[in-house]
């Protein structure tokens, strides 16, 4: 997955409207840019990117309704956010977001890394938890999602 894809996926995971996604995308870019000199190559570049991106996603200030009204979008945002391409089935996307939105921020991060087919070792390294705990969390997330379907 290329760099922009990683950033975009993190934004998609943590924001459910395009304004927030655009803001978070920009924040992550700024922070990646500022943090890049400290990247020493002791982990994979994608791992480092996930760390920085997730870090920004978790510490971002949730905007108030007033701030959302005041937020200005770049002129070409429509182009960025809605490229002229075949759209995904709306129902599938809605289901995915409904499922994701019921998860906590930490669970979202773990699920995203799992969906990106990262190994338990990599997930543990990014999150700062043990591999065993990654497995425990995954089991809990599975149960949570199952309960959602049953409900």
């Amino acid at each position, binding site marked *: *997955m*290329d760099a*922009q*894809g990683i950033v*975009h*996926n993190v934004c*998609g995971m943590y924001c459910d409207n395009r304004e927030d996604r655009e803001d978070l*995308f*920009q*924040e992550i*870019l*700024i*922070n990646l840019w500022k*943090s890049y000199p400290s*990247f020493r190559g002791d982990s994979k570049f994608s791992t*480092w990117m996930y*760390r920085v991106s*997730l*870090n*920004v996603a*978790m*510490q*971002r*200030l*949730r905007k108030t309704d007033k701030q959302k009204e005041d937020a200005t979008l770049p002129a*070409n945002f429509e182009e*960025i956010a809605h*490229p002229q*391409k075949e759209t*995904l089935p709306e129902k*599938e*996307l809605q*289901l*995915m977001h*409904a*499922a*994701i939105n019921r998860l*906590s*921020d*930490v*669970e979202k*991060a773990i*699920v995203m890394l*799992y*969906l*990106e087919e990262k190994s338990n070792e990599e997930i543990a*390294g*990014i*999150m*700062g*938890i*043990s591999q*065993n*705990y990654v497995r*425990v969390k995954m089991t809990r*997330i599975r149960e949570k*999602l*199952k309960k*959602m*379907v049953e409900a």
Partner: protein
Amino acid sequence: MELEQLKTVWKKTTDYNVEGYFVSKQEVERLIGKRSNTTISRIKRKIRNKCFMAGSIGVLLLTFGTYVLIAKEPVFDLLKPLIPSQSNLAMGTFYLVFGLVVGFISVFNAFSYRKILNIEERKSDLKTSIKNILTIVRRAIRVKIYSDTFVVPVTVLVFGIIDAILGVGIFPNTTTLIFFILGAVAFAIFTYFLTKYGQNKRYAKQIRALEECLKELKEEN
């Protein structure tokens, strides 16, 4: 939706995004040129601004104080309407000491800023990063509360000391001095609670959310 179903939709979304969502080099350059609005960036900006403001005022006061001290003739004095006919030595010393107090606030903020940078530079996993962010936010709150609370009492104290040593005439009698001290203490108590309330309103939600994340990541122990 089960995890495997989620994976299928996720893959489709990802492919769609990667192909359809491409931000050009120019756009990336434009975006990274903007100001960051993360909690830490905001805190850093505030401390940096305070440091710069207090530093500039401190340097101005020190320069003016030195000028008043070395001047042979009586010079224009900002406090003249309040405390007339004071010697250059008294007023110069007053400005110098006041400049040092303001300078101390600037150094205090600069020190905190440096500490925040040190914490921030420790690039690590998410759990450690959240711990670091919490440390930074709590430190920033403390810095803000203490520097706002103590600036008035310290100023009054400095006035009192200078007055006692040089007889500037700010406090003509003990009653006035006591009145000022009580006023300063009352103001400090009011400022303490007001700043605490303001900081709490600004960061409490954020701190709670981060503590919640940390708690979730610590669950294994």
